[in-house]
């Protein structure tokens, strides 16, 4: 059920009505049933039903593991408390270590199982294609056949969210949830199931299970956010997609300035697509009275790649930092490596080496997280390269800024923003062409084949977009830009619209008309799913 399908919109309307018309104490059960229905609907086709059970496996194993870890911790605390007087320090320490190992075993088992499912379903064919590539290198014609797996919808998102919860329980950040159905709701909360954000249990729990009465202001603001998301997705992203597809699909025809144009279009399309999807998610949650974290903070206004990644898909970055980067950085092998490298490579290099290894690992995984392909891996490593490069060039920057007093000035800020945007667009080309050599080749043509006059003369009209399309895109982008600019000083809706509900209703009406009229949907347009749904 695509967010942009009529079925989904009908599903939402029915859900909203049922949610507020039935007794409020049942709201969380209704949301759970809606989530499971939404998810099961994705596997309605014959032969695909099996895919539904993977989320059930994740729910059951994570729930049980968290309960076991919690129980183990409580037994430990109870035992230590009861025998406080009799246990000496060493015995207590040994007991705690024994119990910790048990918890670690449960945690590891669950992590291996769930990440194993994710790895097998998502990366088996990638591994097989690489094995076949190696076999071919040795001149053999033999090849391992690929496997036809049903990739469960949003498996990366719900797996990461569930495992984050389990690690938090292991770390004692909060208690595990007792009611398995409530946990099932946390994992299967349908708006964020397919493209995030990846929520933390303690962020959501307060609002997820409590009854919510109908609040006109909140509901209308939620609807406004949903419509804003649809505007971005249907009016901008899906219209832009036509041009992007055309340029990317024919590298032999579209080179040079077309590639530049394609990269800009793709940046806009991806932004409108992904943030639009998140707006719909957060808007639905808002209508239901559930708090979901923000996932974007005007990323294209970032002044460095590092900052960009703090503002783009925030929840994913936070997940990797919290559950991967820090644990890897402070892990025993990492500390050993740090010690060894300081001794053998000197203080300066030795200090950085483990951090860089952790950084590279995180970025490699971040890279292949969206898709099992080399282009994604290179994309991840490309980001890593620019982040590390800017770290290394820090002393040079300092010297430059001491000499030229430009830091903090508006032109310098604009330069930084444009530089970051240009790097991101260049890296995203790997995502566009999905083929590493082709990407590099096409990137090269931007500098070797100068065809800008030809593109402006006639090329712009040959990529599936007409003058009215460009007008809609320009106006849509201008609206996006303006909203982002206003948003620098706080939530736009709160600042501009909160004072009067009539304004909210009017904005909703205008958005609805714009979506219905200018949306790239229906016959004549390819129904396109959100880009991040595929992950």
């Amino acid at each position, binding site marked *: 059920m695509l967010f942009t399908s*009529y079925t989904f919109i009908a599903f939402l309307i029915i859900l909203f009505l049922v949610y507020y018309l039935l007794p409020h104490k049942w709201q969380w059960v209704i949301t759970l049933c809606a989530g499971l229905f939404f998810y099961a609907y994705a596997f309605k086709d014959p032969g695909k039903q099996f895919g539904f059970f993977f989320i059930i496996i994740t729910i059951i194993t994570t729930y049980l593991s968290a309960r076991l870890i919690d129980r183990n911790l409580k037994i430990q605390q109870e035992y230590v408390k009861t025998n406080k007087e009799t246990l000496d320090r060493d015995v207590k320490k040994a007991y705690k270590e024994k119990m910790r190992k048990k918890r670690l075993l449960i945690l590891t088992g669950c992590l291996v199982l769930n990440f194993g499912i994710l790895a097998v379903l998502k990366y088996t064919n990638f591994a097989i294609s690489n094995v076949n590539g190696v076999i071919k290198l040795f001149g053999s014609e033999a090849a391992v056949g690929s496997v036809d797996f049903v990739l469960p919808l949003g498996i990366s998102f719900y797996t990461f969210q569930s495992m984050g919860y389990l690690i938090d329980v292991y770390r004692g950040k909060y208690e595990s949830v007792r009611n398995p159905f409530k946990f099932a709701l946390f994992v299967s909360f349908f708006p964020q199931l397919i493209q995030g954000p990846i929520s933390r249990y303690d962020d959501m729990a307060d609002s997820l299970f409590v009854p919510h009465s109908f609040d006109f202001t909140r509901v209308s603001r939620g609807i406004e956010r949903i419509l804003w998301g649809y505007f971005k997705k249907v009016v901008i992203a899906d219209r832009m997609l036509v041009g992007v597809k055309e340029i990317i699909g024919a590298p032999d025809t579209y080179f040079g300035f077309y590639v530049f144009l394609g990269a800009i279009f793709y940046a806009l399309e991806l932004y409108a697509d992904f943030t639009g999807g998140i707006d719909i998610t957060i808007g639905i949650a808002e209508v239901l009275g559930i708090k979901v974290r923000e996932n974007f903070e005007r990323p294209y206004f970032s002044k460095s790649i590092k900052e960009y990644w703090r503002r783009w898909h925030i929840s994913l970055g936070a997940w990797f930092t919290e559950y991967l980067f820090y644990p890897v950085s402070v892990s025993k092998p990492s500390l050993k490596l740090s010690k060894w490298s300081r001794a053998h490579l000197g203080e300066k290099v030795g200090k950085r080496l483990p951090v860089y290894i952790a950084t590279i690992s995180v970025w490699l995984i971040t890279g292949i997280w969206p898709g099992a392909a080399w282009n994604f891996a290179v994309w991840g490593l490309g980001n890593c390269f620019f982040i590390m490069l800017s770290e290394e060039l820090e002393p040079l920057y300092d010297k430059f800024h001491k000499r030229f007093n430009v830091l903090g000035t508006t032109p310098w800020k604009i330069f930084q923003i444009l530089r970051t945007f240009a790097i991101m667009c260049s890296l995203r080309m790997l995502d566009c062409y999905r083929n590493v050599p082709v990407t590099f080749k096409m990137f090269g043509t931007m500098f070797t084949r100068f065809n800008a006059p030809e593109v402006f003369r006639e090329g712009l009209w040959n990529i599936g977009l007409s003058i009215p399309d460009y007008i809609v895109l320009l106006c849509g982008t201008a609206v996006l830009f303006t909203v982002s600019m206003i948003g620098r000083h706080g939530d736009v809706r709160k600042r501009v619209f909160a004072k009067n509900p009539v304004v909210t209703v009017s904005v909703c009406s205008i958005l609805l008309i714009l979506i219905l009229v200018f949306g790239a949907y229906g*016959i004549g347009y390819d129904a396109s799913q959100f880009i991040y749904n595929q992950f």
Partner: protein
Amino acid sequence: MDKKRKVKNIILSLLVVAALILILAALTRLFMPKYMGEVKEGALIGEYYDEEKDFDVVFVGDCEVYENFVPLVLWEEHGINSYIRGSAQQLIWQSYYLTEETLKYEKPDVVVFNVLSMKYNEPQKEAYNRMTIDGMRWSPSKVGAIKASMFESESFIEYVFPILRFHSRWNELEREDFRYFFGNEKVGDNGYYMQLGVVPVDYIPEPKILGTYEFGEASWEYLNKIKDICAENDVELVLIKAPSLYPEWYPEWDEQIVDFAEENDLKYVNFLECTDEIGLDFSTDTYDAGLHLNLSGAEKLTSYFGDYLAENCDLEDRRDEPELSALWENKKTAFYERKAELEEKFCEK
């Protein structure tokens, strides 16, 4: 927020919602094709609802009925009050649902069905479907027609709210969309779509060899349904095949219809077998080289068929009914005005 302000906000919000509904309704009307330009066939189906529904004969079918039969000739020569419920590439299930709908409004003596659409067992083109369905008023028959005609890529809701289908016309709106915003001009004469041009037949394409000459399951299903619903309503069903020289009407197809008619005690007239008796001259009586007849050809065919109906279907001559005669006088005037207008345009060309 004080109570007064709250009430004010609610009223204002409701007004905004009402304005939204009005705007959407206006946009829907604006974006929907008016069929008042080059392509007029899509406007035919809707014209039926403005008629006094008391017809003796109702024709149902595709372009082979609405371009080949002239109700005015049936009236003038035999006093038969007839109407054509036809549209471009009208599929057999659409003809069935139009028959079903017509029989809810009135009980004619005869329903005439042109069998060419038996060759289509599945929907062909969304644009043609729309020409038939969008003109229909909402009823269970329309719902049935939509469900039977929809492609997989379509959604039912796009028929309920046509703005979802036609919104993309925002950048191709023409003068006619604004001119006919409040209502269309009449394009048909009791469903007949007048053509005056002459393009003689100089070439008939070689018929394609088909994999199978058996009509499809859906075609038979709906032909049976048309037969049954006519029988249930005590209406005589007459099957016809218009005298179009192509697309080919294969003998194998004809045999199946002949057998069906015999089995079910129905009348079937294949006009292709009596073009000489009708007096058709394909060098002057067709406007598109043999596909459809022009007014001259249609008048000859109607006259011939009128004789057939009068002889075989026990139809009353109603020319002595003053109200109906007066109605037809007006129709006759409109018909000749249209003819004169078309002739003028034709001469200009």
